[in-house]
């Protein structure tokens, strides 16, 4: 036993679970081995401390259950409050999304539709915007030729009036 230290035996099991013969063997070894003696002493004290600690107990106060129920109600109320907040936030987010979508529709889709309808209208009238711009000179030419026509048609009246 002197060669084989008893520390493992002390650490493998609780001190209280050691039987009489094991304790006698430990004591015999500890008598000639100071490190094991120290370990044995410390284990004894540790065991006493743990048992002293285990003996203590706190009892519940008479109205403990009331406190628990109040805490439960409080926690249950917290959840709907959170749900309400989440729902409000959800409604806000949805309305914002709808507004953004609506704005997007107004900004991109409807103007596009108007342009296309204008184009369609131009097509139905037989000319397009480009044609109008390109034919402006022609129009001027047409106007000029009307004046010329008038001058050509009524030259005598004009000279008579003078």
């Amino acid at each position, binding site marked *: 036993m002197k060669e084989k230290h008893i520390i493992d035996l002390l650490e493998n099991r*609780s001190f209280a679970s050691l039987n009489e013969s094991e304790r006698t063997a430990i004591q015999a070894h500890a008598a000639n081995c*100071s490190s094991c003696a120290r370990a044995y002493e410390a284990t004894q*004290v540790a065991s006493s401390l743990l048992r002293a600690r285990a003996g203590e107990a706190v009892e519940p106060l008479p109205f403990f259950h009331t406190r628990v129920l109040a805490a439960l109600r409080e926690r249950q109320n917290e959840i709907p409050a959170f749900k309400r907040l989440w729902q409000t936030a959800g409604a806000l987010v949805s309305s914002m999304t709808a507004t953004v979508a609506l704005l997007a529709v107004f900004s991109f889709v409807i103007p596009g539709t108007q342009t296309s309808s204008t184009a369609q209208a131009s097509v139905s009238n037989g000319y397009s915007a480009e044609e109008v711009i390109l034919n402006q000179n022609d129009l001027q030419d047409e106007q000029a030729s009307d004046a010329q026509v008038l001058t050509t048609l009524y030259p005598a009246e004009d000279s008579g009036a003078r």
Partner: protein
Amino acid sequence: MADGKAFSSPPDHSQRTLLANRNEQGKIEQGSDLELAQLARAGDESAFAEIVRRYSPRVFRFASKFFRQRSVVEEAAQEVFMKAFTQLGSYEGRGSMEGWLTRITTNTCLNMLRTAKRRPELASADLSEDESTWLENQLSEVAAERHRSSERSFVAADLADRVLENLSADDRVVLTLIDGEDASVKEVAELTGWSESKVKVQAFRARRRMRAAVEKLLGKQLPPAVAGGSG
């Protein structure tokens, strides 16, 4: 009796309500754990109150193995019942409700210990006079006999707590249950949800750490022949 005058007059509405409540309360008080759990799950507050009333002493006793302050024990117990309420669906009445609640208590306490700050290492200089005296007495053979009866003294329990505060939550749980309460490895495995081999290894290491902490404290108290000798 024959003319019926001896019978009490028929109860009015408020009395009837009171009687009905008493009957209901009586039923709840006599209800089995499973019945109470089912009623509480269905929203019957008084059934859950009865569960708390029935098992709070057990939960308190178990939580006070890990915490000494009443406020902390109460906090732990309250948390246990809150968890129990949310987990009522998992209680099927196969095992005892006491065992079910004890498992919840163990895990709740373990979590609370894990989140609590560990104290710096306790040195013998930190000990109060009472604690030093208690340790000295422990080392004296004669006084040890005398002290065996007063092992559960406040000083010893306080010192135990201070030593345990230096250890990890897992160490505390295994030491408290196995070395302090004589629980078996299997029981601790069931309570914590750990494997039996984990409990064994944890207990082995925890004992080593506890012994080292106590040895350090005893360093001053040990007689020079013992304290300074070689192996």
